[in-house]
């Protein structure tokens, strides 16, 4: 079943610039999709249409068969989004309050909010830091907090925009482990990156964007040979003629 369906999607910004153009895309439930492309290729603009942060100038985005603009709140609950800069995503004064922000917006009862927050904090291993102020967390912890904030909304699809930007090696491993675990627990995962090295081993589909259009779409093994023509570095393993190896090994 296709959980996300995009037909002929075009987005023009207020100044007339075309962000993305003529995008047709269907994403199966439970798949792990990586969208690659150089800076300015339209990856983030595409992602922001998935939960109605941007609405199409032309075309349609459907989530589980329903148009996004029909119920924006539902779309935002259904598609959880992790932004590139975790610092700008964290809105609570403490770790607990930040995770509670989403469920509070869904007008849940206090008991249900507490249950969701504690469960999300346990998943990302931040339960002992519930009273901590977010700006005192490390980069990796902030990213995990942002994941917990998304998990507390109980989404079906989780979208990660450059999840490894500015993270050290342990931070990358922690975040990657969470992404892989979320995929295993049945979430549909969409990750955008220009650095495929860290994630390619886990993807079952690779999409390359350039100039606001999808220029390649297929399994990573099929597509990887075309990467450098579109400004994305080919992962090291493929350069050496090997199979991609997970950063978790």
């Amino acid at each position: 079943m296709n959980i996300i369906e995009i037909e002929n999607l075009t987005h023009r910004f207020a100044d007339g610039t075309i962000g993305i153009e003529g995008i047709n895309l269907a994403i199966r439930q439970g798949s792990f999709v990586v969208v690659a492309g150089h800076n300015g290729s339209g990856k983030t603009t595409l992602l922001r249409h998935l939960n109605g942060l941007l609405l199409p100038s032309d075309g349609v985005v459907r989530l589980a068969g329903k148009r996004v603009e029909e119920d924006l709140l539902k779309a935002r609950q259904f598609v959880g989004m992790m932004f590139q800069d975790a610092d700008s995503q964290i809105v609570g004064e403490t770790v607990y309050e930040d995770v509670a922000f989403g469920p509070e917006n869904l007008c849940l009862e206090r008991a249900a909010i507490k249950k969701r927050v504690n469960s999300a904090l346990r998943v990302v291993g931040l339960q002992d830091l519930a009273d901590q102020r977010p700006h005192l967390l490390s980069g990796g912890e902030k990213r995990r907090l942002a994941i917990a904030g998304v998990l507390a909304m109980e989404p079906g699809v989780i979208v990660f925009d450059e999840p490894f930007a500015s993270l050290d090696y342990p931070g990358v491993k922690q975040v990657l482990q969470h992404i892989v675990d979320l995929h295993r627990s049945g979430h549909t995962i969409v990750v955008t990156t220009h650095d495929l090295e860290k994630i390619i081993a886990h993807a079952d589909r690779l999409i390359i964007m350039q100039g606001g259009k999808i220029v390649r779409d297929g399994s990573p093994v099929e597509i990887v040979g075309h990467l450098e023509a579109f400004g994305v570095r080919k992962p090291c393993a493929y350069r050496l003629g090997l199979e991609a190896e997970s950063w978790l090994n």
Partner: protein
Amino acid sequence: MAELTSFGYFAGDSLLHNLDPRFKLLYIIALSLVCLNLNFLSLLIMSVLLLGLIVYARLPLRSGFKELRYFFVLLVFVFMARVLSTGGESLIDFKFFSISRQGLTVGFLVCWRLAFIVALGFTLISTTRPSEIKAAVQWFLKPVPFIPEQKVAIMMGLILRFVPVIFDQAAETGEAQKARCVQNRKNPVYRLIKLGFPLMRRTFERADDLVAAMEARGFTENRTDPDLVAHQRDWVALTVVGSLCALVIML
């Protein structure tokens, strides 16, 4: 790394930590108003009691003082202004300046009162989660017409959350400019402009990102209300504070 500040919530399980934040705000307002008219003896009693409460709640008194060092500089200025502007029995005369006994007394009393109010604020902030303060303000604003209390509460929360982030950004921008020898430019206005504009631009960009992040998590004004329950201890504490205020006013 963000600079650690002691002027914030400190987790604990004392009576002060467990009181209802609405009552705590009431105590602060009542005590602050009362202390403006107190004499030395009453102020001494109140200060000793407050100090006792701070020690009992195991609040970080030393780092609190350190954090307030700039406030003490302000107090010195207030003291000087009071001393020099109050007439009375002269103690020291020097050219245009005259220091009177009354000036010293009034200056000292005014500074003590201000320090007492700040210590009250320190006690409130250290024993109350920002979300609780926010919830209490939201509760008090609910009956006020034309004020969207949910919006005010969210704005308060965002200010508390983002002030440290803006400080971090200012420090980072400042360091980047020092690395390019900005200290060789002696004109403070030039340096302020060169620091201010990039900082403002970055802050507005962050605000844009924040709006997107809040929308992505379904932000709406119609949200779950905060959970506030008054216990018997809150009413007992209110009676004690009320009686204390009446007593010190009579002294």
